[in-house]
């Protein structure tokens, strides 16, 4: 698994949550290690919000066990758990100032007022907020500042595990990128266990030690960012990262598969023992186009349909005329492929760049 050495702080055993006839989460087994940054990724409706609400104590699982350091905490209410969540809406108290918001968990815990003030000021500076913000109304703060206030308030609680329910989803791209990195810094500085949920695998890749992918109430793969990227366990995980070329294939001899759509055969660099049917995934960035494709084992001829500038890269759409399928090819911008739409082109990829999955 990952490089985190310490034992699990949180263990989930066959977690299930039903709402009437609807099953939101089912059969989830997961160990989260002390001090790691774990991210649950899934599209909306995949059950990740229900998962996190069970982990913080706002929902009770209808089956299975949640163990915190080996202790079963299924029925423990949120206010008794040593964990804390940063809400998607942030849930800052509008009738309290920035300082009073951060102070809230300290006040509730009955900490000595003088120590409270010092701790709040320490957190303000840790989160790069000016000390003068203590008296400021939270509504007067910008979106990024409100994020930091919510994080400071959660840190003031001094939780053993800090949960995040997509807190960055409402922010613009640049601010989100900045805060993702700040969050990773805070994780390193505090050494706490962070459990984050998001619908963006890209966001998860930037921050996480390990990622769990959720699909229809189940966790379909757990692994490091590079494992998720290089060895997706199924088509859903592979396609979740971004646009990919997907072929439905069957075994056609040793290290060969046949495309069910058009009968073309391709080499794969994988043991096909027990593989009958499945999908061959080829990411656009591993597909070569033009002269560099001509020497490759797997080649197809097609027509250049269109090209799109993606900033650092250029994406080409190549149409395979007999089946009417469009392939995606990407190249770095500084090594462009000179051609015009309508021209015949060859595309190809190395057998080891294709990813075979069963479902």
């Amino acid at each position, binding site marked *: 698994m990952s490089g985190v050495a310490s034992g699990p702080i949180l263990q989930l055993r066959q977690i299930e949550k039903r709402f009437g006839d609807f099953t939101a989460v089912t059969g989830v087994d997961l160990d989260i290690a002390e001090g790691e940054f774990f991210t649950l990724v899934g599209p909306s409706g995949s059950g990740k919000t229900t998962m996190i609400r069970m982990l913080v104590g706002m929902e009770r699982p209808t089956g299975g066990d949640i163990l915190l350091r080996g202790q079963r905490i299924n029925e423990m209410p949120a*206010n008794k758990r040593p*964990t804390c969540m940063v809400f998607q809406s942030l*849930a800052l*108290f509008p009738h309290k100032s920035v300082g009073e918001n951060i102070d*809230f*968990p300290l006040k509730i815990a009955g900490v000595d007022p003088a120590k409270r003030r010092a701790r709040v000021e320490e957190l303000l500076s840790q989160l790069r907020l000016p000390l003068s913000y203590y008296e400021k*109304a*939270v*509504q007067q703060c910008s979106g990024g500042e409100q994020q930091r206030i919510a994080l400071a*308030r959660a840190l003031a609680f001094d939780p053993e595990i800090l949960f995040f329910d997509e807190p960055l989803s409402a922010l613009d791209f640049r601010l989100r990128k900045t805060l993702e990195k700040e969050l990773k810094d805070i994780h390193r500085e505090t050494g706490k266990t962070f459990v984050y949920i998001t619908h963006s695998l890209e966001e998860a890749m930037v921050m996480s030690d390990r990622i769990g992918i959720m699909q229809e109430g189940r966790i379909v793969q757990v692994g490091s960012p590079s494992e998720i990227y290089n060895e997706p366990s199924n088509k859903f995980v592979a396609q979740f990262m971004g646009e990919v070329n997907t072929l439905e294939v069957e075994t056609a001899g040793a290290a060969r598969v046949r495309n069910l759509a058009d009968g073309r055969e391709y080499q794969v660099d994988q043991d096909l023992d027990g593989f009958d049917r499945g999908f061959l995934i080829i990411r656009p960035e591993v597909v070569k186009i033009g002269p560099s494709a001509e020497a490759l084992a797997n080649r197809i001829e097609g027509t250049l349909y269109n090209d799109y500038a993606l900033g650092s890269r250029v994406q080409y759409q190549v149409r395979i005329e007999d089946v009417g399928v469009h392939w995606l090819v990407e190249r770095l911008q500084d090594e462009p492929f000179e051609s015009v739409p309508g021209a015949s082109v060859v595309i190809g990829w190395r057998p080891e760049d294709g990813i075979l999955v069963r479902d």
Partner: protein
Amino acid sequence: MANNPAGPPRRTRLGEWLRQPGVLVALPTTLFLLVGFAGPLVIVVVYSFMPPRTFSMFQAPTLANFVSVVTDSYYISFFWSFALATVTVGLLLLVCYPIAYGMAKLFGKWANLVTVLIALPLLISENIRLFGWVLILLKNGILDGSLQVVFGLSIPSLLYTVPAIVLGLVYVYLPFMLFPLVIGLSMVPHSLKEAASDLGASRLQIFREVELPLAMPGILIGSMLTFILSLGSLAESKILGGQAVVMIADDIESAFTFAQNWPKGSVLSVMLIAFSGALVFFLFRRIDLDRIIGRR
């Protein structure tokens, strides 16, 4: 115009102001309010400075009426009105808060039915509803009679007592407390209470730190409405209270009608209006509603 050497005809500022469309549109309503609302108030104030028992508004002003409020023990009626209004507001808060919480957070689609059930009696005259309570509380009335038949025990008449007046006040003014409370409580986002709980707060702490301050606009408006309505109430003390206590509105009515002492009635009215006005003014100055609900 530039080519007119004499310049535009000079208009007075008042003339220009009067020609604005907004002013013209507001004029009929303004006149109506001046004649129908402000005028009578001015007349009452003027009468309060007239010598006792006069019907003329043009005598030399005097403070005799204000002195008589103290010498003739009218402060007792003021005391009763304030005391009963305070008790009524307190009881209404206790009774309405749970109902309002249910309507705002728990009843869902049934909240509309509860709203209708509570609002429906408002269509019936207040006096008729109070006479209904007379029949219930009367010696050998509905309550006493039922207890006698079912349990064989007789209770003393509850009618014409101070608790009966309070019951009437609470009953009649309940909607005026309930609906502002519903609005106040529905302004408390559920996620804030979840967040407070997540940060370790108990139910009581959530109530004190989050729910109460955020619902405060509704609580204040409901309390203010019912306090001022109770302060000027008349029917409850007359119908359910009999001679138990005299409230200030009762005194005002007698002064204008039975005693034919318009200056005395006016001075009591002016004092009641001044008290209520000062209270509203003070509360809304002290408590910044925008700040409470987080608009600022």
